């Protein structure tokens, strides 16, 4: 299978995401100005500071030409993973519910955190072992997940919260410790932690690999159908 990783001006973690994807499949970089996904099987919207986070994190990137194709791809059921800035972009684009606000302490935070896999019933978490927390780093300025109460209830009822920060590990004030949510159709997923920075024992943990392995397995199932 082939992943496509989008590069906006100001993306920082796109090569890291590409390297992580390449541990489970092929991966190429997609240019923000091209309305072309080059036939990839899954799209990753990576971390960084697209357009300098000017105006609001993700607010400008959602208007990039490539995002028209990403929205179309998602509507057709394609798998889209948004990491950190990518999560912000997908929320701004209306492909994911809720919004990300500045961290509660108004500072950038880097930290290795522990995540609870709330649901492994998704193409993004199916390879995660139940009851085994994931150790994955966060690094962001705008990662405090917010949704109005009725939406929060709905997310919970529809099992759309896939990852939560473990008790005591919420680094940013996110409501209900939410670290990652998917859309109602469960084919678009955004998370603030960086699974692409947890794939190599040399540089940290390898718990992020499960996310990429999940996507690979889900795509393989679909291709087999």
């Amino acid at each position, binding site marked *: 299978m082939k992943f496509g990783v989008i590069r906006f001006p100001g993306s920082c973690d796109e090569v890291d995401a590409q390297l992580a994807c390449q541990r489970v499949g092929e991966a190429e970089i997609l240019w923000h100005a091209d309305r072309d996904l080059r036939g990839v099987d899954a799209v990753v919207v990576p971390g960084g500071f697209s357009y300098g986070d000017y105006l609001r994190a993700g607010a400008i990137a959602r208007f990039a030409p490539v995002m028209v194709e990403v929205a179309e791809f998602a509507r057709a059921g394609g798998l889209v993973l948004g990491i950190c800035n990518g999560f912000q972009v997908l929320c701004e684009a209306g492909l994911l519910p809720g919004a990300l606000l500045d961290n509660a302490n108004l500072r950038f935070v880097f930290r290795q955190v522990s995540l609870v896999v709330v649901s492994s019933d998704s193409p993004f978490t199916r390879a995660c072992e139940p009851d085994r927390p994931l150790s994955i780093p966060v690094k962001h300025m705008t990662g405090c997940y917010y949704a109005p109460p009725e939406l929060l209830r709905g997310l919970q009822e529809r099992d759309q919260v896939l990852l939560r920060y473990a008790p005591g590990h919420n680094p940013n004030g996110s409501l209900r410790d939410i670290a990652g949510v998917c859309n109602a159709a469960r084919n678009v997923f955004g998370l603030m932690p960086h699974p692409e920075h947890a794939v190599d024992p*040399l540089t940290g943990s390898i718990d992020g690999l499960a996310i990429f392995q999940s996507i690979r397995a889900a795509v393989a199932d679909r291709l087999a159908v």
Partner: protein
Amino acid sequence: MPTVSPSDQRHRQLGLTDGEYALIVQQLGRHPRDTELAMLSLMWSEHCAYKHSRTTLRRLPTEGPAVLMGPGENAGVVDVGDGLGVAFKVESHNHPSAVEPFQGAATGVGGILRDIFAVGARPIAVLDSLRFGEPTSERSRYLLEQAVAGIAHYGNSVGVPTVGGEIYFEAAYEQNCLVNAMCLGLAPIGRLIRSAAAGPGNVLVLLGALTGRDGIGGASVLASAELGEGDAAKRPSVQIGDPFAEKKLLECSLELLESELLISLQDLGAAGLTSAASEMASGGGVGLDIDCDRVPLRELGLAPFEIMVSESQERMLCVVAPDRVAEVVAACERWETRATPIGEVTDSGRMRVRHAAELVADLPVSILVDDCPVYDLAPTEPVGVSLYPAPPATLAPDASAAETLLALLGSANLASRRLVYEQYDPIVQSRTVRRPDEADAAVLALPTGEALAVAIDGNGRRVACDPRAGAAEAVYECAANLTCVGATPLGLTNCLNFGNPEKPHVAWQLTEAVEGIAQACRALGVPVVGGNVSLYNEAPTDAIYPTPVIGMVGRLPDPARAGRLRFARAGDAIALVGPFAPTRAGSEVAKLSGHELAGPLPIMQTAAVRDAQDTVRTMVNAGALHNAHDIAEGGIGVALAECCVAGGIGARVALPAGLDPFAEALGQGFLVSGPDVALTGLAIIGRVGGDALELEGVLTVAVAELAAARDGGLARFL
């Protein structure tokens, strides 16, 4: 021959002495025009011309087998094997940060990044060395908070990891904080590029941001004069950073180099276009014609002198063959980055600047770059006078050893830096093998399968006590940090932060410190490949401690075996390696006790220290050890406590007879632990295990208590 008119003292306002102005008039055979005077005043400033430090700096050894580019280029470069080079440099942004800490620190990072990609290397790591007044001072807390936020804002946004650094708090930095930033970059050796312009007829292309009034005169007004009253009024001289513009400029510049579209490349830093163009022309032995009307401006009505000296950030200057200009412009458009031809290379040897069809400057390149007078320092050792007031005592004279250890761990200089480094991204680019607090040096994996190690160090208080020995210690301390992860040093960069060199005692501190660095470099076989000098770090009420900051880069064969500082396994033996003969001179415990600053520092037993480094490095690379940590500030007591806290495990140690647990000798002693068989032949002093640190007959403190003291030290203030 025209003479200096007594009524015309503009040159003084621009920082030139009467003698320097007379020299300019003599060389030109006329008075300089306004634009020329502005250009010359900056190129002849201390910041650009090193006129008070050049002679002294010649003492530093700059050659070594791994050196690919030495001092004089935008950054030094060393060979790390398999066709790869590592570029690195440290630079100060002290005065701007003292005036406006957020932007001062942010643009300090931006400037050092451009130095690195100007030689064709992709920046892969940033480190910072910061000095502030005591955190009990509101101003110091403000400067710390804002400088750290500025570094985070810029470094995080451009996608370069901040992997290490150091912070010291001393009253001497209350008015003059220090913000030194170091960057490392990686490049295939074949893609390294120099700044020398070449080929008359080739086109000078300005890349990046618009040129505005920010930073006008930054170099002369801010960087080369003492701080004084009314510094808030200098704020317009501090540059404003835009990391998004820098990120695009970085990617775009590297793409242009990869496509082999550039003949030379240079960043615009202090003194803006004037300095960049002069250095390119001087390096290539050519002339440059620049047309100010073609420089894209942020606002209308800039005078030509403003255009020539503006320090607007995120700009680069390159030389391109005429038939490749269209390709360069197209590649830049893709990155939404401006590329504007603004002039051409000539064979005139002159810097000619036109504005509105008028020639506003026509100077020999040599007068800009080479003719600034170099001043000999008049060093005098201060005898019988105390240059710095004794610090106030904060530790009771009858404090027990346990109380002393907890006070040291919680002191501003030794407490955990977690609150600071958590604001930086240390892992972007997927190279970081050892993160902050995991080891004594940061470790970055190379595509060759080997790894780089990097550390930055400099203890100003110890240099104030004994300039030569203190500066040498900084080099040894850096080398010790590299040793503990298993790295062999390849080269170093230094930033010399001192007071006013025209004062004899400062001149003495500077010459002694440089001599100390030179001796240490020769003893360890480590060349100086580049650096920066920041003088005049004085305010009316105080002068900083003399603060040479050393950034050292090394190479290790196996990143998976890179050393860690934490005690790992109960039952491991702990050994003390090295000729460790510390004293309390210049130590943290002496500071907490309110002692006067006084030397001498312990005498460096160079051969024995080298042997100790080799022993530890060999054991780390063999994978024989479970931890390696050098003994630095706070002595062996604090070093042991740090290993315990990091590992969450205790230790029981019998110190060698007479060894003061808090006395210091930097870069000379190492703590290592591992199975007994691995430590054969070493001086075993104790064992890992339990939940307390016990120094037999001296103290016993629970690890949890040590951790709480260390974690709480800065949290009290932030």
